[in-house]
């Protein structure tokens, strides 16, 4: 049962991330669920006829990237249309570091994050002088320039054929199955989530939010707006770079086609649908955007049986449905799934005496 009120007696209690026994139990249950999921996955696979573990891994990778974008867009209010390409930078730098320089995965993973952070910060420099829409255009240009580099710098990236990457291994134990990679990804997902949650409670986090809400006022009270904007770009790109590196060593082939502007739009859609500026928002959004194409396949299958010609049309409609969902969310639920969940929760908290 839920408590009817929260009464804190110390500052430590007041500052705690998980405040009530109810939430703590919920988190513990979630943790246990994540721990045993690979064993649940097998019967689930048979029932749903998809590789659920693979989907979970994809969701995990997207959660890390979406947390990154959420820090930049949700917390600092800087829009980025280049995060798809930044993820590509992470993937390619990890691939190049491991394949061409022979650096082990455990070093190339953070290094890929750092390189991406650097690239992100360079393209974040215009944010010193540019506001919302100018920045959107600048990052969109970054997207195209990086994409071009990935495709045409053949000597470094292998051009359009891409690069073949190997799986990581830990103490001689190869992390090459869906299951072992699952644990690797979710260790990082949990770390990234805790980091993001904590970031909002620190000095830089508060500076980010101040800049988002009113950057002139933030400047007046002594926040170094430029520094924190660049920092936000750095942290954000670092996380998306990590996601890219994880993606590269999971899919094992790095190709420029995966990191087009479409991915950037998907990332933005994730945090908008999930809820900008909510840590949970990135998670909901990543789950939603990964499962949506799978869910769309159900009516597609059903209809293809009746009208075989409809398949091609459905192929192109998927993107349109994404677009439509973005539009509908922005018009009817601009705060995203996280806010909707909050409303539902509050409603049931007082039910049936909600007056």
């Amino acid at each position, binding site marked *: 049962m839920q408590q009817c009120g929260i009464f804190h007696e110390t500052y430590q209690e007041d500052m705690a991330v998980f405040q009530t026994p109810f939430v703590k139990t919920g988190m513990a249950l979630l943790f246990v669920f994540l721990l045993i999921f690979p064993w649940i996955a097998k019967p689930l696979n048979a029932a749903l006829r998809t590789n659920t573990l693979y989907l979970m891994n994809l969701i995990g990778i997207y959660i890390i990237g979406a947390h990154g974008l959420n820090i930049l867009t949700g917390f600092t209010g800087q829009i980025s249309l280049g995060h798809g390409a930044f993820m590509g930078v992470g993937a390619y730098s990890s691939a190049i570091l491991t394949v061409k320089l022979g650096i082990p995965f455990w070093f190339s993973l953070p290094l890929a994050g750092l390189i991406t952070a650097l690239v992100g910060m360079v393209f974040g*420099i215009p944010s010193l002088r540019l506001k*919302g*829409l*100018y920045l959107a255009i600048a990052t969109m*240009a970054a997207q195209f*320039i990086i994409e071009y580099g990935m495709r045409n710098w053949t000597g470094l990236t292998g051009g359009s054929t891409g690069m073949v990457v190997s799986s990581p291994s830990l103490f001689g134990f190869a992390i090459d199955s869906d299951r072992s990679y699952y644990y690797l990804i979710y260790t990082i997902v949990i770390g990234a989530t805790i980091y993001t949650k904590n970031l909002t409670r620190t000095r830089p986090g508060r500076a980010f939010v101040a800049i988002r809400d009113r950057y002139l006022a933030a400047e007046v009270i002594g926040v170094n707006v430029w520094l924190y904007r660049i920092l936000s770009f750095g942290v954000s790109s670092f996380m998306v770079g990590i996601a890219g590196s994880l993606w590269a060593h999971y899919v094992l082939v790095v190709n420029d086609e995966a990191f087009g502007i479409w991915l950037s739009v998907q990332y933005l859609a994730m945090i908008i649908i999930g809820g900008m500026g909510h840590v949970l928002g990135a998670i909901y959004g990543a789950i939603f955007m990964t499962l949506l194409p799978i869910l769309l396949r159900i009516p597609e299958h059903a209809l293809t049986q009746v009208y075989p010609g409809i398949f091609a049309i459905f192929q*192109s409609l998927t993107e349109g*449905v994404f677009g439509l969902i973005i539009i509908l969310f*922005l018009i009817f639920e*601009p705060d995203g799934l996280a806010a909707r969940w909050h409303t539902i929760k509050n409603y049931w908290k007082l039910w049936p005496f909600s007056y």
Partner: protein
Amino acid sequence: MNEIWFLLQLIIQGLAIGSVYGLVALGFVLIYKASSVINFAQGELLMVGAYVCLALLTTFNVPFWAGFLLTLAFSVVLALTIERFVLRPMIGEPVISIIMITIGLSLVLKSFVSSIWGVQIKVFPAIFPQAPIKAGQIVVSQVYIYTFLASMVFLVVFALFFKYSRLGIAMRAAANSNQVALSMGISVKRVFAVSWCVAAVVSAVGGILIGNINGVNITLSAVGLKVFPAVILGGLDSVAGAVLGGLIIGILENLSGGYLDHFFGGGVKEVAPFVILVIILMIKPYGLFGTEEIERV
């Protein structure tokens, strides 16, 4: 001597394509000035226009002038629908939401086109005479020259429209300040709608012109992205700047394609405008004619 002819040829082709960019950029700037909406779906409006015209000409065998007018009418209806049902609920929302909603819109339009017409490239029936013209050593397809002339005609028509027509003046007033325009009895809602209509119409014209040169397929919407360098160069809120920016970007893009492709292994044309864009943003973010925003605390 050869090099100079090559240069001239690149410049002429660039001017033709650039004039179309200028035309589309005009629509973009109009929407931005009137309602502060950055329209990421401009390229898709262009693509839809090109496809509708193509379908009218080839599937329904309509003569060109009728097909052209019907396309413009269709664009107006499309623009009014978009403005009323997608953009109007968003008035007063943060920039990020508005940018995202136009991106969503572009996805919807793109999938609408590809589900009806597929993704294969389609050849436009020739509207202008195709035979190449030779002047000295320059060989330029006539299409480029007609394209340039056609976009210039449209630009002049719209310049006159803004300068002298009642509606045009109302639009300029609303662009200057929505509030003052409202208090003068101008319906700002109507101005928003009209600016979307004009944007859709110029985009459709641009789509038909470009489609005539390169053929029509789904990547035509990429032209809409080239508009960004043009408007940033010209200044985001300057109509004249947008047109000039379009011309300059068209020429620079063609020159970089002609001279730098050897060094970077092709495709420089696609990325050069964006490199220029980043450089402009770094050194002169408000472009050639844009109003600089000065903030005082």
